[in-house]
């Protein structure tokens, strides 16, 4: 594993200090309805941050602000300031396509393209022109599958459809696809909710390995998962960021009563 990570030159260039993402006073509206209220949070580099909260609390909405997936919803409006490495991602000059290459996303349901395993991973680099030759692309695909811990399982059937894999393998394929565009940040929207515990454990182990090189944000409904995988945890409720802090502190001694009631299962 280690040597694979060192190989990737693009990652070494990333400066190490300071938060990767800083959000200030982010408000999101769906038409007339406000979904997020003044969310301000820093996301640490090379660590896992988890967003927890009851359904409809805005955690996914906020996650989707970070790679501007909300843009695809016509009635959605975002105000405030989200910076990725100091760059305002809602700047009118910013190319959203480029942003999404830098901020990869893994979705709730494994959603590989109904194409071959190879094509699934190669698609991103290809449309962004990240590789110059077929050989380079082959290597990139292999290294991404390797990093996603999938290479061993699929190396002899790269041309078989990605949809033929098991759920857990599909999700790791989606992670391989996400890291193929060499992102800095990986957003995960309940990545394990459709997986069995063993597949979940594999994905969690993968997150642990990936955090050395990527900033990971995960939305999860499983308190235990947030406690297991993340270094920092943010609790959202009714569109507001209620509390953010070290995962250890949030799960042993939350400062806010609402956080405590939520994570101990006392929500009315």
């Amino acid at each position, binding site marked *: 594993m280690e040597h694979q990570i060192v190989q990737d030159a693009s990652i070494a260039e990333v400066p190490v200090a300071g938060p990767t993402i800083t959000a200030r006073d982010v408000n999101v509206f769906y038409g007339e309805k406000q979904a997020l209220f003044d969310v301000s949070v820093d996301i640490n580099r090379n660590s896992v941050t988890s967003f927890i909260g009851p359904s409809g609390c805005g955690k996914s909405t906020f996650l989707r602000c970070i790679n501007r997936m909300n843009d695809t919803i016509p009635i959605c409006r975002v105000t405030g300031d989200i910076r990725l490495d100091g760059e305002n991602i809602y700047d009118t000059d910013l190319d959203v396509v480029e942003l999404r290459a830098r901020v990869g996303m893994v979705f709730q349901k494994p959603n590989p393209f*109904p194409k071959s395993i190879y094509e699934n991973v190669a*698609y*991103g680099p290809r449309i962004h022109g990240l590789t110059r030759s077929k050989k380079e692309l082959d290597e990139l695909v292999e290294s991404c599958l390797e990093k996603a811990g999938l290479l061993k399982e699929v190396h002899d059937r790269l041309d078989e459809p990605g949809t033929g894999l098991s759920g857990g393998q599909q999700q790791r394929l989606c992670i391989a696809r996400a890291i193929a565009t060499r992102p800095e940040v990986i957003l995960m929207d309940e990545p394990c909710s459709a997986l069995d515990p063993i597949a979940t454990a594999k994905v969690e182990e993968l997150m642990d390995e990936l955090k050395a090189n990527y900033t990971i944000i995960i939305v999860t409904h499983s308190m235990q998962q947030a406690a297991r995988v993340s270094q920092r945890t943010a609790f959202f409720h009714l569109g507001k960021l209620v509390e953010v802090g070290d995962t250890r502190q949030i799960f042993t001694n939350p400062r806010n009563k609402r956080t405590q009631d939520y994570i101990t299962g006392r929500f009315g």
Partner: protein
Amino acid sequence: MTIEATSGIEHHASRLNDPAKLKTRYASEARFRAYGIIALGIALAFLAGLFFSIISNGWSAFLQSEYRLDIYLDPAEIDPEGKRDVTRFGLADYTKMARAALSKAIDLPEKQDRAMKRDLKELLSRAVDVQIRDTVVADPSLIGKTVPIWLLAAGDVDSLLKGAIDRNVPEERRQLNNRQLQWVDKLAADSVLQKRFNSGLFTFGASSQPESSGLAVALIGSFFMMLTVALLAVPIGVAAAAYLEEFAPKSFWTDVIEVNINNLAAVPSIVFGLLGLAVFINFAGLPRSASIVGGLVLTLMTLPTIIIATRAAIRAVPPSIREAALGVGASKIQTLFHHTLPLAFPGIMTGTIVGLVQALGETAPLLMIGMVAFVVDIPTTATEPATALPVQIYMWATSAERGFVERTAGATIVLLGFLFVMNAAAVYLRRKFERKW
């Protein structure tokens, strides 16, 4: 947990074994199943009746009675000047040569009276003239030789051979007199007169004689129209559907457009014919009866079907695929062309073929734009007058001769065959490219 422990909740245990209730339910289920089977049976019976009637009437249209006659291509008649001038060939009396050959085949005396000549001539189709001429034009070197040629029998002879003429009818009310019957029997016994595969059905144009009329003009016309529809309706329909589904903002106007497209699909086809007449012929000045105009009209008619089918197909592509593509940084256009459209392809194909099938079977709008013409010459371009398969059926169906009745059914079989093949293609494409999620 025992039932006592959850007092307040009434359990069904006591009613599980009520035989009367069970019996009633089983009976009603069985009854419902029976209704379904009966309904299906009736539908199948009608369908079977339809097919039986069409096929039993029409299969004989694929056979045609022909004489195999040794024709002496008399140079004195065909080419007296010996210039091998093709335009001169048309002036010769080929029917006489055919009649002579026929009389020889029956072993009639050289000397014949007028009635006998007329009887003989009636056995031959009027089209033999053209048949022999075409042979000579195709190969002038045959002039002066005696060549065997298959010549069409007259419609009445064909009907007699196919058993459509009752020999017991008194001679004066019968289409063929006794002498002619004798001759035909002799010719048939000598294998000079045979029933052969009716290739003319597919190669002849319109004719007043059933034996020399065919579907060629209709087939070519229908082909040109299908081509026009496929080339215009598919790209326009798919593009419109893709725009409406993926790009159009949800607004009052897109709602209006959507409602109108759905309504257009239900507009009677004759209205499209009127529209075509007004716009394409009267306003744009396109030629009447031309298959291009028919194609344009059918395009208009097919568009809503294709748009609706394509939208449904695009909508059926799971949004997770779109998210996945957008998530790795594909643009909207890339997402559409790399993922959504390829995945919607089977649905689009099915919709398109259904639309084409609908267009292929359409008659009413074509009548409005004058495609109901008597077209003898086979068109080579889409701007020449042509007819269409269903129109041809309609025209034949209005003729009284026994031969046309048979051809009507035959043409219907051809049309149904095309529809069947296209539907099968749609099913095949759907099966082949359909993806399981």
